């Protein structure tokens, strides 16, 4: 009898404990179903490149709004959490640790600055959280040597941009001996390698490689060296501030040389800062709203105006690459999470590889990512543009 009593007591306790556990689990599941999936963004939200952070935010916000309106991902809404990297790699890495470890973001997005992304890449590969680059173009960001590699990108890639810049200089300006004017940081180094390789592939010499600092007031000495070395075209790779100083110095020298540029000047008030020479710069982009015959461009511009009332025209969505890259990258990320059927990092990484097709703002992506290819955009996705009255306009 005693044994029966103990057994019945145990059975009751087990039954009660089981019910309580089931209740708690049900509550947890309900909470999980309602909990948003957090998406982190670390970008320049202040300082000279603040417009880049604003553009990425707008593109991601538009995509997240559409995704949430359609029922979210895995039945859960997406939530964007942003941190300012202040264009500082150390601050970017601290923000990445905070967003992943404290906020528990599922996927992390980067910003404009290659040095910041390069500081974050080893950490995300180590902690196995997918990182999506919607802007920074440094080649080693995705080609980082890690296996497994958790870094994906929907943006330009320096090594391909280098080929495109050289092709443009040769075919349009008949360049024979271009000079390089590069920002003195890892992004500049990445482009130095890309441009030298692209020139070598064509058997062309260069007139010299000069560096510009972010706070240089006057770059006449550097430009004078290139001019005296016989430069017939300038390849410019720098962000808004130093690019503006290069153009002001050219104006001061009265040197009328073609400038073929990476997309750095697109990140801010280039027209205002660079003066009359701003409109002569030929700048590579992956997307423009102006002169775009893809109906999605008009449709998304209208949606952006509704979401952000301060946007009145295409001139107010400069730089458009940040918006379009971030918009497509966010939708591709949502598809990867859907494919993964979980918020587990390795599963999402495989989810990126499982994306078959997506009709985006920039193009229709077919099998955009494979284990060997973590960059969704290629050489056919580039367009050359000019900055006219604050608006980026395609040249051709």
């Amino acid at each position, binding site marked *: 009898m005693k044994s029966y009593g103990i057994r019945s007591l145990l059975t009751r306790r087990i039954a009660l404990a089981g019910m309580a556990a089931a209740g708690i689990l049900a509550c947890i599941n309900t909470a999980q179903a309602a909990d948003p999936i957090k998406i982190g963004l670390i970008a320049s939200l202040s*300082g000279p490149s603040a417009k880049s952070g604003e553009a990425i935010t707008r593109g991601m916000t538009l995509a997240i709004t559409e995704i949430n309106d359609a029922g979210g991902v895995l039945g859960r809404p997406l939530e964007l959490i942003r941190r300012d990297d202040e264009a500082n790699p150390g601050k970017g890495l601290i923000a990445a640790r905070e967003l992943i470890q404290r906020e528990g973001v599922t996927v992390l997005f980067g910003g404009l600055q290659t040095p910041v992304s390069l500081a974050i890449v080893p950490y995300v590969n180590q902690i196995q959280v997918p990182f999506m680059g919607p802007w920074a173009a440094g080649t080693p960001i995705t080609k980082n040597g890690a296996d497994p590699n958790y870094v994906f990108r929907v943006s330009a890639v320096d090594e391909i941009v280098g080929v495109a810049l050289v092709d443009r200089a040769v075919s349009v300006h008949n360049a024979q001996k271009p000079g390089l004017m590069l920002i003195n940081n890892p992004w500049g180094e990445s482009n130095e390698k890309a441009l030298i390789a692209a020139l070598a592939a064509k058997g062309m010499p260069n007139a010299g490689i000069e*560096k*510009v600092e972010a*706070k240089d007031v006057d770059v006449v*000495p550097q430009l004078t060296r290139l001019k005296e070395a016989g430069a017939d075209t300038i390849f410019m790779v720098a962000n808004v501030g130093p690019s503006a100083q290069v153009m002001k110095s050219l*104006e001061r*020298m009265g040197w009328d040389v073609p400038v073929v540029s990476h997309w750095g000047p697109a990140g801010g008030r280039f027209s*205002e800062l660079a003066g009359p020479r701003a409109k002569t710069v030929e700048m590579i982009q992956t997307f423009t709203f102006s002169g775009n015959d893809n109906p999605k461009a008009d449709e998304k511009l209208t949606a952006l105006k509704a979401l952000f009332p301060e946007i009145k025209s295409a001139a107010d969505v400069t730089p458009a690459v940040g918006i379009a890259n971030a918009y497509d990258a966010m939708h591709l990320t949502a598809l990867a999470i859907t494919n993964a059927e979980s918020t587990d990092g390795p599963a999402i990484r495989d989810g990126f590889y499982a994306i078959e097709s997506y009709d985006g703002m920039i193009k229709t992506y077919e099998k955009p990512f494979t284990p060997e290819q973590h960059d969704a955009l290629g050489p056919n996705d580039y367009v050359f543009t000019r900055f006219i009255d604050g608006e980026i306009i395609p040249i051709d």
Partner: protein
Amino acid sequence: MIASTLITGLGLGAMYGLLALGFHVTYAVSKTVNFSQGSSMMFGAVMGYTFGVTLGWPMPLAILAALVCCALLGLAIERFVVRPFVQRGSDLWLMATVAAGIMLENIVLFTFGKEPRSLPSAWADEAIEVFGAGAYPLQLAIPVVGIGIALLLTLVQTRTKIGKAMLATVQRSDAARLVGVNTRTVIAASFAISTVFAGIAGLLIAPLFNVSASMGTIFGIKAFAAAILGGITSAWGVVIAGVLYGCIEALTTAYLGSSYTQIVSFSMVILVLVTVPNGLFGTAGLKKV
């Protein structure tokens, strides 16, 4: 190449000299240095932009108002950031002025905005030809203003009553007080003069560069290097060292390449300090034993 390089060097160097003169003024009077000089320079440019562009005031009035704001900033720095530490015999004013500069930068970031702006100037619109090289008239005006201010300061220090009061405050502040010199006012005035110099530098460089919250930091560091190089006790010394520093920077970039600029210019500062510890034109202070 030499003409355009020297125009660049003289313009930048005179600006370093002007900022360095601000370091000299406070050091000469109170043996303290305002390490927020770079931020004060930025403040001058930002206030000039605010009055002249945002509020649309006539530019001469905007410049005057910006310099008055700079003077008030200097008085505030002396009263609230330097004096409390000096009165206690503490050297923590050094860190306090650095902190004040960072605070100022962040306040401007919130109020003025995150993006750099362009300050228009008729003197930086069209380049003119000087010895075969292009130059904006403003670039040529900066050395003239820098040397003119150094000359004016020398005249004030040697020929006026306030200059003599400043000298007395430096030499024997207790004795100066006994003969009726208000040393507290003299020191406060030196901080106001120092930030006005920084404001002038900011207003001169803004049309050639841009106006932003972070524009002053690197200039402040280089100007301090120039002050040390010239010998912080000599007004003419810091101005000459500033011009020298700017020219060496520009010549290194032009003849060796931009990768060597900072290496050569800062190596030169270290070399001079090792061989001439008081700077090129400075004098050693008397140490009573």
